């Protein structure tokens, strides 16, 4: 929230250099469109509430189930068991129960509503710059798609940074692309349907405190409901006790089934925190000694105490996606955007305004020629209307060597449904994690390395097209001008947008 304020303040100061334009053609255009906030055109698959303050995954059904379970169980406990226990034993019981309940609810909401550490997608200029660098490295041959990995040495371990085709960035170490939310998330742990959000760098501690306090709450309720029934049975017999407080039976059943999974999950995450690993890394076995003698976790601080403190009490970075900021409609750009909608809201009219100015045509043409030179070398690329294939990425055609933005289409809904059905609750971490590393081999179809091969073969969600294909319009310019210069730029723009 604070960052939002300072962001807009900064924008105001820089508007003196970046956005104010004296051309009369642009001003009436600006007045006509209402100011939109950035969350409204956020490219990921997320749900926003309260004007961008709350951010969740798209499918939140299971989250509501979690809420209902917790609220109903605790409600029943406070209504039916607590009066008896407060009288018979001590009134401290409902107080402790109340505190635990509020803590659980608070951490749950905080986990669900916080931005997990989503990395914003690259601006078109950045993406073009990266492409150029990659081409330079490969000598611009373009017959084979370039290997989209960078190697970096961290604390003595060689780590491969992968290129994300959707976000057009090289993912920082420990970041991963969530196929359900269609975002790259920093320090990606897993996507949790129970919480209705990804668990990443910014909300991991809340998630951990949620499952820890929920374990305590479950054990607390379980033990005191059993105590209640036992005390009542001493008074009036077992069956009568059950008849007198039927709610207790329901509570016992819910708690019994929850205890195993939640306590197990807490234990697992305690282990992860103390060794500074993410669920993702643990499942892939990235740092296990089975991979090699010299394999160790380069991120670990060395001892358990420091690892725990760093994970739970370390500094909390702010959200990188400025959800509540306003879209600046005419931020200066070098090359036109390749998507129909970008986060920065550049539109066709704005670009045609740019094109109208003679000076801009000159410089634009130079820029485009420089940028499109590597593209022009590949003869087989068809530029016009690029629709990402609705089939899954396994059948990626070798059309454009610079790689198309293969969206992680087919994995999302399938794996989500699979997961919610097969959920032994503990297993949710596993199933969802398998869905997402699978997306990577598909995107990197042409250059699979042994370590990228998906580990659970049974999970390949092939087939089944998703109704969620991105249509990238290449031909949004009217090449209706007689000016040859203009035609050249347009041709160049069309070729560029085939990337």
């Amino acid at each position, binding site marked *: 929230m604070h960052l939002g304020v300072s962001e807009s303040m900064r924008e105001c100061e820089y508007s003196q250099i970046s956005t104010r334009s004296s051309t009369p053609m642009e001003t009436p255009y600006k007045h006509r469109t209402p100011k939109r906030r950035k969350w409204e055109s956020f490219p990921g698959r997320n749900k926003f509430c309260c004007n961008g303050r709350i951010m969740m995954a798209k499918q939140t059904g299971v989250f509501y189930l979690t809420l209902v379970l917790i609220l109903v169980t605790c409600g029943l406990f406070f209504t039916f068991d607590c009066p008896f226990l407060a009288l018979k034993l001590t009134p401290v019981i409902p107080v402790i129960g109340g505190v635990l309940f509020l803590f659980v609810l608070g951490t749950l909401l905080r986990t669900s509503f916080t931005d997990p550490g989503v990395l914003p997608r690259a601006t078109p200029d950045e993406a073009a710059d990266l492409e150029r660098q990659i081409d330079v490295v490969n000598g611009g041959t373009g017959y084979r798609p370039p290997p989209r990995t960078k190697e970096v040495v961290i604390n003595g371990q060689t780590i491969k940074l992968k290129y994300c085709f959707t976000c057009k960035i090289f993912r920082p170490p420990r970041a991963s692309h969530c196929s359900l939310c269609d975002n790259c998330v920093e320090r990606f742990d897993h996507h949790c349907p129970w919480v209705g959000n990804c668990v990443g760098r910014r909300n991991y501690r809340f998630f951990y405190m949620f499952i820890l306090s929920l374990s305590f709450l479950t054990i607390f309720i379980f033990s005191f409901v059993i105590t209640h029934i036992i005390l009542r049975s001493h008074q009036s017999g077992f069956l009568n006790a059950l008849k007198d407080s039927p709610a207790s039976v329901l509570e016992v059943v819910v708690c019994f089934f929850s205890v195993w999974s939640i306590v197990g999950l807490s234990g697992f995450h305690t282990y992860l925190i103390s060794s500074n690993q993410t669920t993702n890394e643990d499942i892939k076995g990235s740092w296990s000694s089975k991979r090699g003698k010299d394999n160790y976790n380069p991120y670990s601080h060395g001892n358990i105490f420091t690892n725990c403190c760093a994970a739970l*009490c370390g500094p909390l970075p702010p959200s990188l996606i400025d959800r509540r900021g306003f879209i600046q409609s005419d931020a200066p750009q070098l090359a036109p955007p390749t998507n129909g909608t970008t986060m920065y809201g550049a539109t066709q009219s704005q670009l045609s305004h740019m094109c109208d100015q003679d000076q801009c045509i000159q410089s634009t043409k130079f820029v485009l020629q420089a940028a499109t030179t590597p593209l022009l070398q590949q003869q087989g690329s068809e530029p016009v209307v690029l629709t990402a294939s609705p089939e899954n990425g396994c059948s990626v055609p070798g059309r454009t060597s610079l790689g198309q933005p293969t969206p992680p289409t087919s994995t999302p809904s399938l794996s989500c449904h699979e997961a919610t059905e097969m959920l032994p609750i503990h297993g949710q971490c596993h199933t969802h994690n398998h869905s997402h590393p699978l997306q990577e081999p598909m995107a990197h179809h042409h250059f699979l390395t042994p370590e990228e091969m998906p580990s659970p073969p049974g999970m390949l969600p092939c087939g089944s097209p998703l109704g969620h294909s991105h249509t990238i319009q290449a031909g949004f310019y009217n090449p209706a001008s007689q000016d040859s210069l203009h035609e050249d730029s347009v041709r160049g723009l069309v070729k560029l947008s085939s990337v």
Partner: protein
Amino acid sequence: MQARVPTAADGNMATEFHNLQELRHSASLANKVFIQRDYSEGTTCRFQTKFPSELESRIERKLFEDTVKTLNNYYAEAEKIGGQSYLEGCLACVTAYLIFLCMETRYEKVLKKIAKYIQEQNEKFYAPRGLLVTDPIERGMRVIEISIYEDRGSSGSSSGSSSVSGSTAR
């Protein structure tokens, strides 16, 4: 709009803003240079201090490196795990994070300092040379974006572009 080459900043804020505005009006965006992240020390925020070739004729190497090193120091300060951050974390946990409704996190405070620093650097050193440094937070902390502006309508200008693409109308 007269194409006036902005002179070196003389400490007057009004003149500097005026320079920046003139820069926008009198110059066109020629190229952008991206300074990528340096992950050799882990996931903490650091930027590469390698001097990009496009800026060779534009700005002194030392100035550029100083800027990037100072930014790196700021980010290291923000992400430092130590006594103060533990205290803040524990206090926040105990108050169920409600305390952040009243006060800023240390990270946010440092980000504000960084924003101010970048603005100062732009006014003092970069704008007079036709450059503009964008705060990395506006690019998702992935890159430091340096925009190179060329004077419009300047023929054979002294700033002579060494970048591949930038060239204004002659």
